[in-house]
């Protein structure tokens, strides 16, 4: 049986297409999750990443899925990507203070750099703590980043990356089943697929 990944669609903004395609290439069956009942019969959860912090949280509230989502994230392997990682933490400060899902300790803030924002580009990751997501990855591989936010004050950092000389958190893990990645594995060629495959095979 293939692993069924529930891909949470935060309404208008979510880029479901590329995430769905990449998960399928990585060997999963994808089920789009928009309402509470869509959470049935899924093995894992992916929170995709296009949109703004408050819009995503608003959609999740409006769809009435917040409580179920939190409960599911606490019981199933979950991967938050880019914005999907940002909303895993307690609180975000993109345009104004917005509560996150509060699954992981930490805050989401605008990148603290004097360089251009958003940071867009391919760069490698420096693994800070061993993590099953990073099994068999090649340390020279680059991944695609496009973000204005960074997670700070998180105790669960598994990877850092650099924007020019600025070091920021590019991966977090709660120690159990919840992971966040700042880059887009679904847009990062074969090396991104390897990470998604590692997640699916957990």
């Amino acid at each position, binding site marked *: 049986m293939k692993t069924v990944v529930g891909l949470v669609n935060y309404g*208008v*903004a*979510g*880029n*479901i*297409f*590329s995430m769905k*395609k*990449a998960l399928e*290439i990585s060997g999963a069956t994808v089920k789009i999750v928009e309402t509470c009942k869509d959470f049935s019969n899924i093995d894992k959860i992916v929170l995709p990443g*296009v*949109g*703004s912090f408050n*819009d995503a949280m608003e959609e999740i509230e409006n769809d009435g899925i917040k409580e179920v989502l939190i409960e599911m994230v606490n019981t199933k392997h979950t991967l938050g990507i880019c*914005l999907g990682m940002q909303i895993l933490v307690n609180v975000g400060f993109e345009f104004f203070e917005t509560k996150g899902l509060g699954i992981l300790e930490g805050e989401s803030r605008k990148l603290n750099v004097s*360089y*251009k*924002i*958003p940071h*867009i*580009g*391919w*760069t490698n990751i420096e693994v800070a703590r061993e993590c099953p997501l990073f099994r068999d990855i090649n340390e020279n591989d*680059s991944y*695609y980043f*496009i*973000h*204005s936010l960074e997670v700070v004050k998180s105790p669960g950092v598994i990877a850092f990356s650099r924007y*020019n000389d600025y070091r920021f958190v590019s991966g977090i893990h709660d120690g159990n089943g919840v992971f966040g990645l700042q880059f*887009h594995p*679904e*847009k*990062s*060629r*074969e090396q*991104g*697929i390897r990470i998604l495959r590692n997640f699916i095979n957990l």
Partner: protein
Amino acid sequence: MKKVRIIARLDVKPPYIVKPIHFDGLRKVGDPEEMALKYYDQGADEICYIDIVASLYRREILYEYIEKVAKNILAPFCVGGGVQTTDDFSKLFHHGADKVVINTYALQENSEVIDKAATIFGSQAVVVHIEAKRWDRWWECYSDCGRIRSNKDVIQWAKEVESRGAGEILVSSVGNDGTERGFDIELVGEIVSNVNIPVIAGSGAGSLEDIKDAIVKAKPDAVAVATLLHYNINTIGDIKKHLHDNGVEVSL
């Protein structure tokens, strides 16, 4: 040091990639799906697809062609042409775009679409294309593939779109385009020094040296290449190697 992105640019008049000659005559150069995959395999950092006649013909965006290209690409895919509303943005994302490029409608009709799109989708998903025509002392914004004037100053417009929430600017120069005489380095440099969002030098690469010169002198964040690739003069690999050998950081 920052790494400069090398983007393969596909100007499309569905179902073909075309090469505009001074933005006027169009020459067919190939199939978008096939060529996008080729540039992806060569190591392009992004693929940029622009339907260059959608606005001009005032017709619907042709999503099926976009989706066909998107399905093969596990790298960022940037799509434009004929975009008017946030609903168009949304549909493009659902057909495989990661970023959406807008020009004509924002420039000529309603620039607030930039603010709206940035709020809903995030600035990183909104790319404004500026087609600039050089006059004696200024550059003027054009639309519809270099056909329609706007009377707007390029530098002012670049600052305005940044303040409205655009996440990136793609610059093409009308006149230099399709003529392979090199980038308008002064134009790109002016925009780069006037905004604090990434700038893509979008047209005019006639040789590897042109690309290197534009990067060294104008300091864009990315370069979009079309002709050199379409006519198999150079591959993405050749471009990256040449830049790397000349001290420009790229992702290899």
